[in-house]
């Protein structure tokens, strides 16, 4: 029996049996089911079991469709995911706006004289007061320079600002300061000898009577305040002489007027205005005031040109305004113009014809261009006036404006002019503004376009094709799913494998790490990261990479735990001991006995995980934390129509198909995962 090889023994036995059978020579058929059992490879068995599961087949079909839809269809689909589509459409557009001018515009006449901004501001308030009170003239003093202006009303809605010219005409000399009188003590200080007690009494009486001139002893005295309380300067003016600047003999009346105005500083003589100024203690200059020519004109009128779009210079406008209530004719740059009035408007015409019109309404295209023709402006003005007279807020009229084709181009008629079409204009008043609206063709981004032959699922809020975005969105969603799950598996299998195989402190360390990762609340972390990514203004693709990395990094703990648990339980199984006892090498034990028993769970886990990662990505994108516009994902597509309840109902044709895609994909992954789990389980029949 020593060292007998089984093979030899068994061979011998087989040979003996065959010989015996041959002797019997009967072709009996053994009850041996080799004939009826089909031998299948393990992979084939798994496939057969999988095939038997109807739901798994449905899931597989859906997934195949999703992959084709996301990865193959876009190749043949002519639209890109970020392609924006436009359309031409007639829509109520703001055509023009009109407003009644109630503020004044200033036109500089004298270029050399800069009028202070303060004075300009004062002008507007004074004009308002003058309009209210019906004044015709108003004096304005520039407090900084002491310059005096006059504001004159030239006519309705036109005011003129003139400056005041000052001219020294003469000087008063020869007067003498008598004393400074202290009214409290009744004593005069620095008195000359000829200040008598009687004079002092007279001064006191004059102060008491509040008089400034005092006749005493045939002399004229002036009592003025010395700048200090109770102190008065007393001048003797009896010897004062007025010297005229031009050397002429001074008018005695003028001299007396100057003396009388010694204190007040201003007086009128012979219809002329004068002023006195203390230039030194013994000389007083006398200035004559006179009006200058206009410095500035201020008017409410708006200038309209008969030539559409023509601009007027300020000089022209000033010339018009000057002539408006005066000569009615003026010359500007060699052309003479005449002004004629027509109700509230004034028409400026030259020899060539009507040139400009003044009215109180500003009527422009809505974009601010002054390109409307006079006839239109007049029509609008009339409409507004009737509207206001009737107290209505809205009015409409029909007017012919250049016609547009459906592409938004003006149609040019055979005669070379724009073809006109009658359009109904609506005027609406709002806050003193009038807005004119009409139906016009516009080149628009085709937002929320309904389903059409061009765009089967319509267009979204940015005018992008929903179907194209669904395809590209599927690409990203599926790609994110696969990459994240792959990352999770790589991390998880390595960590779980290490923990399970080495046990001891490695296991403790890794499992505590897993515990920590399980404790990390994923959503808040992702929300914070989303905010950081927003702050960093990362490129959409870079952001996508980061998101996948973070999702993978946060998700490995579950896989690690699964792998570790499997390996731990498998290691203790008797078949592992048996494998050791039969002397199999370590690598063979790991790869033939351990791994095949872990892989099915991993595949199932990964398949199920794919669904949940897709949901995660969609949720993040929906919350605006994941993939950013314009990169399409299913989550962002749904997000784009959730701004309001109404939107969700109205644009259901956008989010329902996308939502269905998400649901179908996730359900399909779960079906396939279930199917795989059952198929991998050899105990399932």
């Amino acid at each position, binding site marked *: *029996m*020593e060292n*007998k*090889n*089984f*093979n030899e*023994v*068994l*061979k011998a*036995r*087989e040979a003996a049996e065959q010989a015996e059978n041959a002797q019997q020579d009967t072709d009996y058929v053994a009850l*041996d*089911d*080799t004939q009826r*059992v089909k*031998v*299948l490879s*393990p992979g084939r068995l798994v496939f057969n079991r999988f095939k038997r599961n109807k739901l798994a087949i449905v899931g597989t079909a859906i997934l195949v469709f999703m992959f084709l839809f996301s990865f193959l269809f876009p190749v043949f689909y002519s639209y890109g995911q970020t392609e924006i589509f436009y359309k031409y459409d007639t829509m109520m557009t703001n055509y023009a706006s009109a407003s009644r001018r109630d503020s004044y515009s200033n036109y500089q006449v004298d270029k050399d004289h800069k009028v202070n901004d303060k004075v300009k501001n004062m002008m507007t308030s004074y004009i308002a007061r003058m309009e209210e009170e019906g004044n015709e003239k108003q004096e304005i003093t520039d407090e900084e320079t002491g310059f005096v202006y006059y504001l004159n009303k030239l006519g309705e809605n036109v005011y003129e600002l003139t400056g005041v010219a000052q001219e020294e005409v003469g000087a008063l000399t020869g007067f003498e300061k008598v004393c400074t009188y202290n009214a409290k003590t009744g004593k005069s200080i620095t008195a000359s000898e000829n200040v008598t007690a009687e004079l002092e009494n007279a001064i006191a009486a004059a102060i008491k009577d509040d008089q400034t001139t005092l006749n005493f002893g045939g002399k004229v005295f002036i009592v003025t305040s010395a700048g200090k309380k109770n102190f008065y300067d007393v001048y003797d003016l009896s010897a004062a002489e007025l010297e005229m600047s031009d050397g002429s003999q001074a008018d005695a009346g003028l001299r007396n007027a100057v003396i009388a105005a010694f204190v007040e500083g201003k007086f009128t003589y012979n219809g002329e205005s004068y002023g006195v100024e203390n230039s030194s203690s013994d000389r007083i200059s006398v200035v004559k005031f006179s009006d200058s020519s206009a410095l500035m004109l201020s008017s409410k009128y708006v200038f309209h040109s008969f030539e559409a779009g023509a601009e007027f210079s300020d000089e022209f406008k000033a010339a018009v305004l000057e002539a408006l209530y005066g000569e009615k004719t003026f010359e500007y740059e060699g052309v003479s113009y005449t002004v004629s009035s027509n109700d509230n408007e004034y028409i400026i015409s030259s020899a060539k014809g009507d040139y400009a019109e003044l009215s109180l309404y500003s009527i422009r295209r809505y974009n601010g261009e002054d390109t409307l023709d006079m006839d239109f402006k007049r029509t609008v003005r009339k409409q507004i006036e009737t509207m206001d007279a009737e107290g209505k807020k809205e009015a409409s009229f029909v007017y012919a404006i250049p016609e547009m084709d459906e592409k938004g181009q003006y149609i040019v008629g055979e005669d070379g002019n724009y073809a006109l079409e009658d359009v109904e204009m609506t005027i609406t008043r709002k806050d003193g503004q009038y807005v004119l609206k009409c139906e016009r063709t516009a080149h628009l981004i085709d937002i929320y376009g309904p389903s059409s032959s061009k765009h089967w699922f319509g267009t979204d809020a940015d005018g992008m094709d929903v179907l194209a975005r669904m395809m590209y969105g599927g690409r990203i969603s599926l790609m994110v799913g696969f990459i994240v799950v792959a990352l999770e598996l790589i991390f998880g299998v390595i960590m779980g494998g290490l923990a399970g195989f080495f046990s001891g402190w490695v296991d403790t360390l890794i499992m505590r790490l897993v515990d920590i990762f399980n404790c990390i609340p994923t959503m808040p972390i992702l929300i914070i990261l989303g905010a950081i990514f927003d702050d960093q203004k990362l490129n959409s693709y870079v952001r996508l990479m980061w998101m996948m990395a973070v999702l993978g990094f946060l998700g490995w703990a579950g896989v690690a735990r699964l792998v570790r648990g499997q390996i731990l339980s498998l290691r203790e*199984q*008797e*078949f592992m*001991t*048996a*494998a*050791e*006892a*039969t*002397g*199999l*090498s370590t690598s*063979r034990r790991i790869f*033939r*006995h351990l791994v*095949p*028993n872990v892989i099915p769970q991993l595949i199932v886990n990964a398949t199920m995980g794919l669904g949940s990662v897709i949901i995660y990505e969609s949720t993040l994108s929906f919350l605006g934390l994941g993939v950013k516009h314009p990169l399409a994902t299913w989550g962002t597509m749904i997000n784009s129509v959730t701004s309001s309840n109404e939107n969700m109902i109205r644009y259901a044709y956008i989010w329902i198909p996308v939502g269905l895609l998400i649901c179908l994909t996730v359900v399909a992954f779960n079906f396939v995962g279930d199917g795989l789990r059952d198929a991998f389980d*050899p*105990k399932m029949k």
Partner: protein
Amino acid sequence: MSSSIKEEMKAGTADVSSYVHDDDLLVVKHLKKYFPIKSSFFRVTVGNVKAVDDVSFSIKKGTTMGLVGESGCGKSTIGRTILRLQDKTAGEVYFNGIDIFSLSHEELRKMRPKIQIIFQDPYSSLSPRLPVGEIIGEAVREHGIVPPEEYDAYITRIMKACGLQEYHKQRYPHEFSGGQRQRICIARALALNPEFILCDEPVSALDVSIQAQIINLLKELQKEFGITYLFISHDLSVVQHISDTVGVMYLGSMAELAETDELFDDPLHPYTQALFSAIPIPDPDAKIDRVILEGSIPSPANPPKGCKFHTRCSKCMEICKSECPEFREVKPGHFVACHLYDEK
């Protein structure tokens, strides 16, 4: 088989040499296996579970040794330690004169096919993801037991020898009944052309009819291939049926060891007597003289002083409580560890 080791073994302690013979395939000397008890927090060893405490025996080539004892007495631990599926604490195991624990891992791996094991649970001892042909043949291929061209035929032959059909090769273990699975286990062990098979309660998970099949299969294979068995069981009648020698274990130590007939006819150790009195006799009129043991088996972590059995022994003497009895040969080929048989 190196005879020098045998000589050396024989030159060793008398108690061992007395039961070591030239044709012994397996010799176990003073084998100890303690499992440390660690404190829950600091992981400091606070004690030992003495699962196998100084056991010595040997098995002759081509024979079967039965190992019986209560649950938890260390039978399976001995088995696994002999196979070096776990480390020993002390002692030596010689297989064909080679100290198993002195081998390197690679040498041990090469040696593995010679020493096989059949597990108690045929359900968990078969890898669920491998087909039966692969389970049986994997190690055959690995060790090159047969030339590659004969491999398939060889597996078929082995399977047939174990009562399995060829078409079972492609099937998975879950498709088989318990008895068939145990046959697969036997086939797996047998396919490696082993000299020694450790049968660790191979039939206790099976119903009686299947048990008979398996036992008979094992006996048949032994007859044909001259395999040596160490048959661990707590089923005394099975052990009686299959074994040539029987060892009785109590609390990690060998209580009695003798030829099967000798032992069953004349059990010397009070524990063996108690154990054998529990064997049912298929005769309703037979009067059974049951020896009822009091109490339960003491904890192997804290075994009693002196004779380990003294706490439950009906013939306990003073000496039993203080002195550990020597395991000695009281009759030719009959070893017992009991003070009752001390030479006066």
